[in-house]
Structures are given as structure tokens and as C-alpha cells.
């Protein structure tokens, strides 16, 4: 069996075990699962994806350039700590960009890919790779440019907004009902104690999925029947900037993270 198949089998087995044992603290449980997976499979899914991302990063695009020619905020090819400072305004595009969006910019403007040639799974794998250079770094997001401030304000408003046929709002779950549960996981304190910005991008072992914060936000809308914002759209970016700024100073324990 290939390592990838191996850890899938192992993951499913461990998950069944955890479910049979009943309620446990999800964060502690994720740590335990990770350790067990490492012992059984010898490698973590996060490490495999980072490896894939590295290959994609060093692959030449139609222009003959690799992603090392791109500036992720700290200068051309500098990855150390770059992800911990995103989203931010970029002078070359005149836009605020997060990690996902900046990878798209790199692949289209620098590497010469057409937007329709870019697969989401590749963007996520590269995000895993770049994020891995920010483990141990504090989140440092600023609101310097007017574009950053405008998006922050929109993000804050979206976070507290009630909308749709079920009066959905991020704050109702993640501020008012922190710690309560309407399913397996308790609602995280995403603006405070849980420092949720530092938990993504992540591998979700319960679903064998690789997600960035963009996917996490879309799932929160979708789970309760609210239309989802498109990937790479401004409302997602606005919510990200707001949450990242609220988590400024929080140290990234490990990127990519390993979550339930």
C-alpha cells in the first residue's frame, strides 16, 4: 500500500475508535490522532501535501518561471514568515490579497497560467507549503492602506450581520454561543481565546480534506443553508482580514494545522 492509502485506512480506524469512546476535547483529540497517525503511517498527510506544494512551487509555468519569482509580501522568493503577514495590500496589483489570492496572482501574472488552467487543489497545496514557513511566527496584519481599512470594516460588518431565511450571522455562533454545541464540535471563540486564524490552512482528519480559511468560511455559510460566497471573492477576504487582525500577535503553533 502507498503511504497515502495507508494513513487513510489508519485515520478511519482511529476516527471510529474516537467516536466509540464518546466526547473528548476536540483539540486534545486532534493532537492524539496526529500522534497515532504518525506512529502508524510514519508520515502525516500535512507533510505529504506540503511536499506536493513544494513541487508545484518549483514547477515552471508557461512563462518559464517558478513561484520563486513571486513576491508574497516580504520580497521576491522570501517565504519565511510571509503567510503570517497576510492578507495585505500589494502595490503591484493594487489589491488586498490573502495567501490563496496571492498564489493565483503569482500563477497568472508571473507564471503565465490562464485562470482556467489553475486547479483549486494545487492552490491549496501551495498554500500549505508557503504557510509551513510561518510556524512559530506571530500573526502581524496591519491596516495601513485605505483599501485594507475598507475591507476590514466590511469584514467586521459581515461578521456581525444577520442574513437569509435563517437569520445567519458569524457572531451569533462564534461570539454569543461560544462553547455551546449543535453538533460534534463546540463553537470556537474565533476572535479571542481560540485564535482560530492560526488554525488554517489545515488538514481535517475527520473528512480527509485540505482546507484554507477560504474553505472554512464557505463551509460555515453552507452548513446552515446560506448561499456561499465564491472562492477568492471580496466578502471572504474581508472576513479574513477582520479575523486575522483580531488575532494579531497570536503565535502560529503549526502551519499547516491538523484539525478534526
Amino acid at each position, binding site marked *: 500500500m502507498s503511504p497515502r492509502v495507508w494513513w487513510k485506512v489508519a485515520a478511519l480506524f482511529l476516527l471510529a475508535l474516537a467516536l466509540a469512546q464518546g466526547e473528548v476535547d476536540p483539540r486534545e483529540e486532534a493532537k492524539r490522532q496526529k500522534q497515532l497517525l504518525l506512529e502508524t503511517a510514519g508520515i502525516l498527510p500535512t507533510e505529504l501535501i506540503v511536499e506536493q506544494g513544494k513541487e508545484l512551487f518549483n514547477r515552471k509555468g508557461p512563462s518559464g518561471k517558478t513561484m520563486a519569482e513571486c513576491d508574497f509580501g516580504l520580497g521576491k522568493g522570501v517565504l519565511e514568515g510571509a503567510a503570517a503577514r497576510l492578507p495585505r495590500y500589494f502595490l503591484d496589483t493594487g489589491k488586498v490579497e490573502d495567501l490563496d489570492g496571492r498564489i493565483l496572482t503569482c500563477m497568472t501574472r508571473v507564471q503565465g497560467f490562464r485562470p482556467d488552467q489553475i486547479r483549486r487543489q494545487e492552490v491549496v497545496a501551495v498554500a500549505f507549503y508557503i504557510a509551513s514557513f510561518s510556524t512559530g511566527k506571530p500573526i502581524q496584519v496591519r491596516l495601513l492602506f485605505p483599501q485594507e481599512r475598507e*475591507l476590514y*470594516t*466590511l469584514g467586521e*460588518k*459581515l461578521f*456581525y*450581520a*444577520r*442574513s*437569509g*431565511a*435563517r*437569520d445567519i*450571522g458569524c*457572531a*451569533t*455562533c462564534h461570539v*454569543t*454561543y461560544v462553547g*455551546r*454545541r*449543535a*453538533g460534534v464540535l463546540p463553537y470556537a471563540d474565533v476572535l479571542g481565546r481560540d485564535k482560530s486564524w492560526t488554525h488554517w490552512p489545515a488538514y481535517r482528519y475527520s473528512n480527509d480534506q485540505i482546507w484554507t480559511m477560504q474553505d472554512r468560511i464557505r463551509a460555515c*455559510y453552507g452548513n446552515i*443553508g*446560506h*448561499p*456561499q*460566497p*465564491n472562492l477568492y*471573492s*471580496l*466578502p*471572504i477576504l*474581508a472576513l479574513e482580514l477582520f479575523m486575522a487582525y483580531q488575532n494579531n500577535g497570536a503565535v502560529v503553533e503549526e502551519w499547516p494545522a491538523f484539525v478534526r
Partner: protein
Amino acid sequence: MKLKKLFPILLATPLVVALAQSYFTPSELEAIKTGGKAYAEVFLNQRPDQALCSFHRNRLPADLLPQFLEEQRALIKYPASGKLMGDWKKGGAIFNNLQKANCFSCHFGSPVHLGGDVGPSLEKYGLKRGQSEAIQRYTYEVIYNAWAYFPCTVMYRFGALGGLTPEEIADVVAYLLDPESEFNTKPAVGSK
């Protein structure tokens, strides 16, 4: 316009419209449109009462409360039959369906699914509260429009926003209240 002339107009305008016409500015709505048509429409059509709760971050100031509650009450409609308790078996199917009403996800007490703790426990609700006219009405109205009792709460406004019909709500009321209902005769999943 002078303030004197404006005053009667303000009085005649529903509170929610007068105070929070739109929560998002036109340029913010333009940005939201990049999220796609279906997503944007939800915000372009944000209801004035939703805008008010958004603006006050779910905690309405005391002086706005009486009129807000009155306006929410005015949204409540009743079954044509006038009966607030319907068929508890049909109500159970609604209560325990994740897509349909999802009541169990937030409330403990279902004999079918393990309940959550976002809302208060409803365990043996009918045995504890009885079936008086007042309790039937309260239960029906909370389900129809929770904001008429708990302004800006997380519980969906099942009747007011069209998730359930008045008859379906009456069925759910029966599921909670009827002493014969399995909600009251069987133990809740997870009860000690």
C-alpha cells in the same frame, strides 16, 4: 424639512425602517456582489429587522425593544383551523429532521437524536409545562417567530421567514406538548 414636520412622518414609519434602512453602504454591497449572485442577493434583500440586529450586534437598546417586539408579534399567523396543537407524529418528523427544522441540533430532549445545548433543554417539555391554552400559544409563537420573545436570538424564525407553515408548527407544538407524544413518553437520547 423642519423637525416639526418630520416628526409625524417618523412616528408613522416602522421603527426598523426608520432606524436601520440599510446596514451596508452601496459600495460595500458592490464588494459583496463579487461573492456571486445568490450570496449577494441575501444581503441586498437584508430585512430591516435583520439590519437592526446586525447594527446593534444582537443586543437592542432598551428603548427600541417595545416597538421591535410588537412588530415581530405582528408577523405571527395562526393555522386556519385555529388549533395550535396538530399531529405529534408529523411534528416529530419535522423536529428530528436536520434539513427541515433541525430543532434537535440546538435543543436537548429528542428521543431520536442526541441534542445540542445552544438553546435550553426541552426534555419532557409537555410534562413540565402542561397543555394550557397559554402554553400552547407561547410555544407556537416562539416557534413561529422567536424574535417576538427573544429579540435577535439565534433560533430561526420558522414561521415568519417561511421555513415551516402554520400547520407544520402546530404539529411540532403537539410533538412537544401532547402527553402521548414520544417526546414525553420516551427517554431523551443522552438522559441520565
